[in-house]
C-alpha cells in the first residue's frame, strides 16, 4: 500500500536530501513524524 500527497504548486519546499535522493531514483527510508518540508508561504513572510 502507498500514500501519495499532492501539494499545490509553490506551497512547500521539500527537504533537500529527500529531493536529491529522489532525483537519483532512490527511495528514502523515513518514519512517521520526520520533517518533510517547510511551507513556502511562511518562508516568504520570514524572508520579507
Amino acid at each position: 500500500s502507498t500514500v501519495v500527497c499532492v501539494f499545490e504548486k509553490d506551497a512547500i519546499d521539500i527537504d533537500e536530501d529527500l529531493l536529491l535522493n529522489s532525483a537519483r531514483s532512490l527511495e528514502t527510508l523515513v518514519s512517521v513524524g520526520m520533517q518533510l518540508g517547510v511551507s513556502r508561504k511562511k518562508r516568504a513572510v520570514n524572508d520579507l
Partner: protein
Amino acid sequence: MGHGSSKSNGSDSSVPTFDSKPSRVSRLRHSLHLHRHRSGSGNGRGSSSFSQQKLLASDDFAGIALITLIGAEMKFKDKWFACVTLGERTFRTATSDHTDKPLWKSEKKLLLERKGPHIARISVFETNILSKNNLVGYCEIDLFQVLDRDSDSDSEVLDLLDPSLPNTVVGKISVSCTIEDPVDTEKSFARRILSIVDYNQDGMLSLSEFSDLIDAFGNQVAASKKEELFKAADQNGDGNVSMDELAILLAIQQEKEPLVNSCPVCGEILGKYDRLNDMVHLTLCFDEGTGNQVMTGGFLTEKQASYGWIFKMSEWTHFSSYDVGLNAGSSASHILVFDRKTKRLVEELIDGKIVLSMRAIYQSKIGLSIIDTGAKDLLQSISEKQGRRMNSVESAEEIPKFIEFFKDQINMADVKYTIDQFKTFNEFFVRELKPDARPIAYKERDDIAVCAADSRLMAFKSIEDSLRFWIKGRKFSIQGLLGNDVCSTTFVNGTLVIFRLAPQDYHRFHFPVSGTIERFVAIPGCLYTVNPIAVNSKYCNVFTENKRVVSVISTEEFGKVVFIAIGATMVGSITFLKKEGDLVQKGEEFGYFSFGG
C-alpha cells in the same frame, strides 16, 4: 607513504599502540575550529568549550577518519570477516583463519563529508563457501564522538550485538579510530600533488612541472596565466615552487578561482562543496593502490559485501556506486533504499521468486496482457480471500513467523501491545505504536510538514520530475490520480510525495499537515502491487488504476493538500479514523491499511 595521521601500529599485540602527542586533541580541535571559521560558518565568538561542543555536534566538518579493524573475540570458531559501512560505502577485511579470535588488522581511510554520514557501522560475518555469509554481530561508532574524545588512546573494545536479539552481546571487537588533523591533511596533500609532477624529485616545481600540474587538475588556462600563477606561488622568487609555497597557493587560489577542477585519479568534477572536501577527496584517491588500504571496497551495503562467491559471479556487475536508483530498483534482484536516519544504503528484503514473478507480470507486454485477461479479478479475489484468512483466529499463528522473517526490521519495543494480545494477524498488521515511539518534528509549528508513514519516500518538486525519475506508467497524470472531482490546476503543477509501505512496516498513516478534512472521495480500482517494479514499468499504471481514497485537507500554511491512500495486492482494505469536518493536527493518526479487498 605517510598519511599525516597520528597513528602508528603496534607490534605483536592484538591492540596496537598509538603515539601520544599531548597536544593532538587540542590541536585538532583548534584546526577544526579554524577551518569552520575560514569557511564562513563560524559565529566568530572564539573557541569556548561550548562553541567547540557545538562544532563537534554539528555536521559542519569535513575530514578523514582512519579506522582500523584489529580483531574480535567471538563465541564460536569459524572463518570470519568484518565490514565497515559509512554512508554509501562499505569495505571488508580479508577472511580470517578458522578461529574464535579472528585477527584482521585492516585499515581504511573514510571520507567524512560536510553534512554527510558520521556513524560507521561495523559488522562481523561468519563465512559459508556456497551460500551467503551470515551476519553474526554488529556495532556502531559515531565518528564525531571520536573527535570529542579527550583520551589519547585511539583504540577501544566494543560489544558486538546480535542483529536479531536486541541487547544480546555475541562477541567483542577491537577497533581503532583516528580523525586526521586537517592541517596534516593539507600538508600531506601538497606533498602528494607535488610528487606527481616533480620529475627530477628535488622537492620543488619548475615552471614546466608546475604547468603540467595545472593541466592534470583539468584546468584549461592559457600559458600566460600559468606563468602568472607560478610567479604568484614563487614567493621567495627563486624560480621554483616549494611544497609550502604550493600549499599557500592552493589555499588562496582555490577560494578565489578554483585551480583544481577535477580529480586526476578518478576524474570526478570537484569544487561542488568546498576546498577541504576536494582536498580530502584527492588525498583518498591518491591512496588507492598504494597498499595503504588493506580493506577491499566498492560495495554499497554490508549485505553486498557479504555475498558468497557464487552469488558474486552472477551479481557482481549489478552494483557500483553509480548503480543505485531506478535501474537497480526495477531490474536488479535487490532494491536499495537510503536510510535517512543512519544515512546508509540498505537492501530491501524480498523473496527472489516474488521479484521474478513481479517482473514477469509487470514489466512485459505479455504480463500486461495476462493482467488484462482476468488477472485483475484474480488479484481482487486473492486479496479478499487473504483478508478473510488474516481476520481468522488461526492466523495469529503467523505472527511469530512474520516477526522472525523481518527480525531486524520490526522493533517490537515500539509496539503498544504484546504479541499475545493480538487475536488475529490483521490485528497485528495494523498494530498501534506507543505514544512516544514516533516523535513529531516541530510539533508546535504548522508551517513544517512531516512524513505521513513509516515508508520508503520519493518526493518531486513537479509532476514532470516524478515522471522523469520514477513513475513510468504511460497513462499517469494528476487528473487520473485525483479524479475529476478533486483535481484543479494548482495540483496539476504541484509537488508530489510518495510514501511506499512494505509488508513489515507499521501500517498506520498519519497527517502530514494540520488543518480541516474537507472531503473524502473513494475511487474503485484494481489491486496491483505498488512495488517499484510495477511503478517503474511503462506497461502498468499503479497509481491511477488502483483502488484508492482521495481526501482533501484544508490548511492555513500549505493551502489544500490532497492525501491519497492507495490499496495494493492483498492489502486493499483502507480504514479511516477521522471524518469530514474534523480538525486535525499533523502527526495524528489518520487511518490504516489492512489485509483484504
